[in-house]
């Protein structure tokens, strides 16, 4: 039977000086799956994403993307893998000296041999997907928080990645925009048939997107399953997370 796992993480550990952030984390992500990573602030969710993309080097463990251990390959090989991965940063990380058009064109010019017409077409189509065609000549400083997220998303998906990594895609947005962005992520995932890992502590976002969720606590994965099952759990930690009231641990 064909291996349906896009990512395999084995015994991943990472610490910053004395602070243990990830310890012995093992995780598989299947092709086409939307995995949500939950956890309180500072529990290593973003560190996990940055290890997967190669921005941070773990202290121990292995990360396989399509059977290639990204910790044992050259930078050129890692960059070949990165070309198939999109990353939406918490702050959107738009290049603020470039217009929206230049932000979107930036990875295309460097990785593809498009003509100017093909480039324009690709940019326009991607902006249409995120419903922001009008913003094409705006500078990032002229965009609202929600618009920046959409443009950041457009820039991440413009290279048609197989895997999308989202770092807090809805942080700082109002509930309506949160819902819009979450639905947009889900629609794009369906339309472009991507695999996604979404780091969030936003329940609205997770309920819309997640096929499966994991919880990080004390540097380890403590719960894993479907959102519906996890939200009905009697575990005090999960109850606290999913309820509006604080539940005392027994």
């Amino acid at each position, binding site marked *: 039977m064909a291996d349906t796992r896009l990512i395999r993480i084995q015994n991943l550990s990472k610490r910053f000086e004395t602070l243990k952030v990830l310890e012995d984390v093992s995780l598989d992500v299947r092709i086409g799956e939307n995995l949500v990573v939950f956890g309180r602030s500072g529990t290593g969710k973003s560190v996990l994403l940055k290890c997967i993309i190669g921005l941070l*080097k773990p202290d121990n463990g292995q990360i396989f993307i399509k059977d290639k251990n990204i910790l044992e390959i050259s930078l050129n090989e890692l960059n070949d893998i990165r*070309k198939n991965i999109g990353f939406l*940063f918490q702050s959107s990380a738009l290049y603020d000296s470039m217009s929206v058009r230049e932000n979107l064109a930036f990875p295309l010019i460097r990785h593809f041999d498009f003509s100017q017409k093909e480039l324009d077409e690709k940019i326009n189509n991607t902006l249409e997907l995120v419903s922001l065609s009008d913003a094409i000549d705006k500078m990032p400083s002229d965009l609202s928080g929600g618009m920046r997220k959409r443009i950041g998303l457009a820039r991440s998906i413009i*290279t048609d990645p197989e895997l999308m990594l989202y770092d807090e895609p809805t942080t700082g947005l109002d509930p309506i925009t949160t819902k819009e962005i979450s639905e947009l992520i889900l629609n794009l995932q369906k339309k472009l048939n991507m695999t996604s890992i979404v780091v969030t502590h936003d329940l609205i976002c997770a309920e819309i997107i997640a096929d499966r969720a994991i919880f990080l606590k004390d540097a380890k994965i403590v719960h894993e399953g479907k959102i519906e099952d996890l939200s009905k759990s009697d575990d005090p930690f999960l109850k606290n997370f999913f309820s509006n009231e604080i539940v005392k641990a027994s």
Partner: protein
Amino acid sequence: MNLPVIKHKRRATFSHLVYNFFANITGLTIFNWEFIKAVFLPPYEIAEVKKHMDELGVKTFPIVSITGFIIGLVLALQSYPVLLRFGATDFLPNTVALSVIRELGPVITALIFAGRVSSGIGAELGSMRVTEQIDAMEVSAINPFRYLVVTRVIATTMILPVLTIYVIFLALIGGYVAVIITENMSFEYYKNAIIGAVEFGDLIPGVAKTFVFGYIAGIVGAFKGYTADGGTEGVGRASTTAVVFASLLILIFDMILVQITLMLWPTLG
């Protein structure tokens, strides 16, 4: 590319200052090595280099124009009473020209350039670092070091000699204005005195060292910005320390390069 993280100590004790100084020197040495490795590899980003030469160099012209003119003017005005005391006012053009060409023009232009450009690069790259824009480039499989650092350092290295020649020219004009004020000297005499006093060998070391100063201004600004941490406070720190560190290195290298020049061309002494 994973550069080593330089952890600075924040308390202003003597031991921490010494630690930070050596941490900076170590970090800058590694950063230089990365630059040397990256500068010869494609893609060459020529358009970016041109853009930075315009941004960092051409836009520095107004401030160095004023500075250049004033250096020449003040130098001539200050030198005049001393030369008058020895009855040597005829040597005023020679004094101005040799001082400006050999030392004042290159060094003052470099210090002003560092003040504007090192801090600008430090702030810009620092801001890109703390807002994850550099990480965004890296995850897009684009080498941010080559795109952001190499292009800027090449631009500063190439543009400072041009600025210096321009400053020297304006300083000589400033010197002539002072001569008109103090002495009834014709432009023809002033010009011929300078041409007679200055040899081509005077110009070459003076301008050649500005390639080094331009490199220092660019690489220090880029180093401080690229390795910035700690949010907006870190950006401010990167910008300020870039100017201080670049200015200090320019003066240290000036001292070394003057010694080397005198060893190679003893007649210049």
